[in-house]
């Protein structure tokens, strides 16, 4: 075993080494290509040369017709831009791949650090070749790299913890960032005034501008880091929510100070306007996002016939929301978040399951690529950019950032805890403070500065802070979390019981609040939910889904997931979560009420049942012929006695099934008549089997259950088959349709030609 492990690690080591070699080769190729292309593009003097070269060529062509047809020619200019972009992205992803092959590296060092390091390497190589490495262009960053990450975060934002902690998040985002900005700016200015530092040229407004840039917690860095430490939901949403919502503050402060840094003075009126601007920026951004979100939800209502383009609507509406907000200098991030949050519940109710999966994976993919590129570019830009290192300034910045963050969090928590019901403990405060990372947004904002004098120094300081937070804080937060025994994220999936009780709790707490007589959090949430159900859902969700209560849609989703899992697991013999022999008949009381039983049987049991039936069919082949479809259908129209008998037999049947599985005897004790009916029940039931799970949830929502329940399942499945066509296609129509086809084929086959071998074969192939 040890040798196996050893050899596999050697192999993986070799594999990663190969990868590294490949990566390097790619690097060199790219660098060479970049330099070659730059030569071609930069040298304007060179351009007329080819032209002049071509002219004699041309002339020579007309005179001499002897030039050979170029079999292979080189034209890099043509594809230069997309080629370079693709090469960069490919390089970034190969690096990411490489990290995960190296076994222990990804546990110790967070991915963001590794990527920055790679960026440093690449930048170093490019510089060594003698070329100018590309810098993280602010346009590229803000318009192309940042939106996917924010959309991914916003679309999958866990709404419940976010709204429950919204007050806390807002206080941290707004007041915390303001405190950071002014504290850092003020202290920097104070220090700059001291004689010996040589920083006398930095005036107050520049300092404040710098403070504004460096104060904001960065969502990209926070996401990258928190993803790896699996911290509990509360802390995650606090830090992450803060990093998203502080964008408005950053935008306002940045523009404010930048304007005034040119003018030089600030009046009270300007400060007041700044405050107004903050509200406009944040609320305006949210409004823009909400409008696009509702538009997107409304559009998705009509996409039932063009499922393929559904994901595109989500992406495009969100991107338009971001860009529209940026047009007016509103907060693009808040707009994007608002759009995603607004759109999601309605879109998810309207789109197909495949579109949902597509959206999820595309968002994850894009945000992953963006994140990787951002960190690599950060590294490259560090090597590239003009630096102006000033020990005092840089060290002071780092220390001040850390100190102001700690002070800010502790101070604000003291105030917030007076209003929170569940208070934040000291450990949680520490993690919130320690998790305040700076990232590429600060760098890009710094890059946008126009003042050359200070810009280099600022950029250097910003980069140093980013490096410090990402490397030092990023690497140490995981052991700290373990050391402080902070609660981790609970891994288990939502069960139906939890969902029932979450809803129950909601109503209970609202009720208790009403008895207490004050309008609390739950009361308003309840009001919003009712408004949503009464008006909004009708407009934005197509068809019957608009009236579907949340519990039912949750249950349907769960059933769907289990059905898909069951079908996929098939022959892999890996049973889904519960390996228990409990079935419905263990729960149902002896005297059954009129409920329809939808037993869920694991794959193993199915196998057994089919084996048993195959064995028994050989004995009862003749009998089956006499029981045709007609006979079974007459049953429900007979009096209740037969119905009761039928039900009893079904109970017996189920008990027998489980009995056979736990007691592996092959005896059949039932008298022939009952056995036959039993068999045909099985037959019918089998045909129904694959179908039942996929549609059991849907069946639940179809109100056609007035017919007596103990009916031939044939009847029901044929009814359902008929009913399916007029229904609007739901999620996974393909799955159900294929099973339905199989279902009907099997039905006809079962009844007309019950040859055991054929059936046996069919069954086994169906299972596998």
């Amino acid at each position, binding site marked *: 075993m040890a040798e196996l492990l050893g050899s596999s690690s050697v192999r993986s080591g070799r594999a990663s080494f190969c990868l590294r070699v490949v990566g390097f080769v790619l690097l060199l190729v790219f660098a060479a290509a970049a330099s070659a292309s730059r030569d071609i593009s930069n040298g304007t003097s060179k351009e007329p040369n080819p032209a002049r070269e071509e002219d004699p060529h041309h002339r020579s062509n007309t005179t001499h017709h002897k030039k050979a047809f170029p079999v292979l020619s080189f034209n890099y200019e043509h594809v230069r831009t997309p080629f370079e972009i693709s090469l960069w992205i490919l390089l970034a992803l190969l690096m990411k791949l490489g990290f995960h092959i190296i076994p222990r590296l990804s546990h110790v060092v967070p991915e963001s650090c590794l990527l920055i390091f790679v960026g440093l390497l690449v930048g170093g190589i490019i510089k060594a070749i003698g070329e100018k490495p590309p810098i993280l262009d602010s346009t590229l960053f803000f318009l192309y790299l940042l939106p996917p990450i924010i959309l991914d975060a916003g679309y999958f934002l866990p709404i419940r913890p976010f709204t429950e902690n919204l007050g806390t998040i807002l206080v941290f985002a707004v007041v915390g960032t303001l405190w950071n900005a002014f504290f850092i700016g003020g202290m920097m200015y104070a220090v700059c005034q001291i004689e010996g530092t040589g920083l006398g040229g930095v005036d107050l407004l520049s300092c404040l501008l710098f403070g504004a840039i460096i104060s904001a917690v960065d969502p990209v860095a926070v996401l990258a880091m928190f993803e790896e430490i699996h911290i509990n939901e509360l802390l995650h949403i606090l830090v992450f929510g803060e990093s998203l919502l502080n964008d408005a503050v950053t935008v306002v402060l940045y523009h404010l100070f930048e304007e005034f840094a040119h003018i030089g003075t600030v009046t009270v009126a300007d400060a007041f306007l700044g405050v107004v601007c903050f509200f406009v920026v944040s609320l305006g951004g949210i409004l823009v996002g909400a409008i696009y979100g509702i538009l997107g939800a409304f559009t998705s209502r009509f996409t039932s016939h063009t499922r393929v383009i559904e994901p595109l609507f989500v992406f495009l509406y969100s991107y338009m929301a971001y860009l529209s907000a940026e047009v007016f200098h509103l907060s693009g991030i808040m707009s994007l978040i608002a759009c995603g949050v607004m759109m999601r519940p309605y879109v998810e109710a309207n789109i197909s399951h495949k579109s949902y999966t597509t959206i999820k994976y595309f968002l994850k993919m894009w945000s992953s690529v963006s994140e990787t590129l951002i960190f690599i570019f950060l590294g490259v830009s560090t090597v590239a950019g003009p630096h102006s290192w000033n020990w005092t300034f840089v060290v002071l910045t780092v220390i001040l950032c850390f100190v102001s963050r700690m002070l800010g969090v502790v101070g604000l928590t003291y105030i917030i805890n007076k209003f929170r019901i569940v208070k934040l403990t000291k450990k949680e405060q520490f993690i919130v403070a320690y998790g305040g990372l700076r990232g590429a947004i600060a760098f890009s904002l710094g890059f946008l500065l126009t003042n050359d004098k200070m810009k280099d120094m600022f950029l250097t300081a910003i980069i140093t802070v980013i490096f410090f937070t990402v490397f030092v804080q990023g690497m140490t937060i995981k052991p700290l979390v373990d050391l402080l025994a902070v609660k981790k994220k609970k891994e288990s999936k939502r*069960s*139906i019981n939890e969902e029932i009780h*979450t809803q129950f*709790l909601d109503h209970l707490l609202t009720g208790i609040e009403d*008895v207490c007589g004050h309008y609390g959090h739950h009361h308003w949430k309840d009001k919003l939910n009712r408004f949503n159900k009464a008006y909004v859902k009708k407009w934005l969700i197509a068809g019957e889904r608009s009236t579907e209560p949340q519990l039912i849609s949750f249950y349907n989703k769960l059933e769907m997931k289990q059905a898909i899992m069951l079908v996929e697991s098939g022959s892999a013999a890996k049973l889904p979560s519960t390996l228990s022999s409990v079935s419905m008949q*263990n*729960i149902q009381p002896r005297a059954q009420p009129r*409920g329809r039983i939808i037993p869920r049987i694991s794959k193993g049991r199915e196998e057994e049942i089919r084996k048993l039936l195959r064995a028994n069919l050989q004995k009862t082949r003749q009998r089956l012929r006499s029981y045709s479809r007609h006979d079974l259908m007459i049953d429900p129209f007979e009096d209740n006695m037969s119905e009761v008998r039928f039900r009893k037999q079904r109970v017996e049947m189920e008990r027998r099934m489980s009995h056979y599985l736990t007691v592996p005897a092959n005896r059949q004790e039932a008298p022939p008549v009952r056995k036959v009916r039993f068999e045909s029940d099985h037959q019918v039931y089998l045909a129904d089997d694959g179908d039942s799970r996929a549609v059991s949830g849907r069946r639940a929502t179809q109100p056609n259950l007035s017919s007596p329940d103990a009916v031939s399942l044939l009847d029901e499945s044929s009814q359902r088959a008929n009913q399916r066509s007029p229904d609007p296609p739901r999620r996974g129509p393909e799955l159900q349709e294929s099973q339905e086809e199989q279902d009907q084929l099997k039905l006809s086959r079962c009844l007309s030609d019950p040859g055991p071998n054929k059936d046996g074969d069919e069954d086994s192939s169906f299972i596998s």
Partner: protein
Amino acid sequence: MGASQTHSEHKFQDLVDKTGFSLEQIINLHKRFKQLSGNEDTISRENLDSIPALATNPIRKQIIEAFFDKRNQRQDEVGSFHEIGFEQFLMVMSHFRPPTLKTTEEEREVMRREKLRFLFNMHDTDSDGTITLDEYRKVVEELLSKSGAIGLEAAKAIADAAMLEVASTNVPHMEPDEFYEGITFEHFEQILKGLEMESRMHIRFLDVNTTTMHCGK
């Protein structure tokens, strides 16, 4: 007025110790109690029924019933009251207090168990110590009661699935002849372990001395 005030404060001091509320919270709740009862000393079901905000709540019957359930008084009695006094009212309300910074781990466990017990009592309407399938079905039906026919049909399926889940999680290997009687309190605790009841099942009780609020009446 002075004498009765000190008398009531003295009584309230007892309640502070018994229920864990602060004095201001008790005074506020007392005002509300008087408002609900029409200045009487006891509240009946009709008083609670007449709160307009409760009308839209799908589980209001259970909520009202919970106030009159003797099991929620932490005195190991069973049955239900016809009317409750302020002390019983407070006892029921005390189930909804949040944990504080000073609550230790064991106290949190105790708190969680108490809250889960309250929920359990709400579901277990016949007080036999287990939640049977019928009772559970009723719970889900009530939750979906505002959704018309769709809700009622689905309620059965959902309740069945939920029950199956409880049984599978707690008693994974059951003989086919065995019958799962119902959800006992231990199983109930087990199945809702992940929800961390002590941080979720609470409401804000006002400490500040506000004048009577006009909502609800």
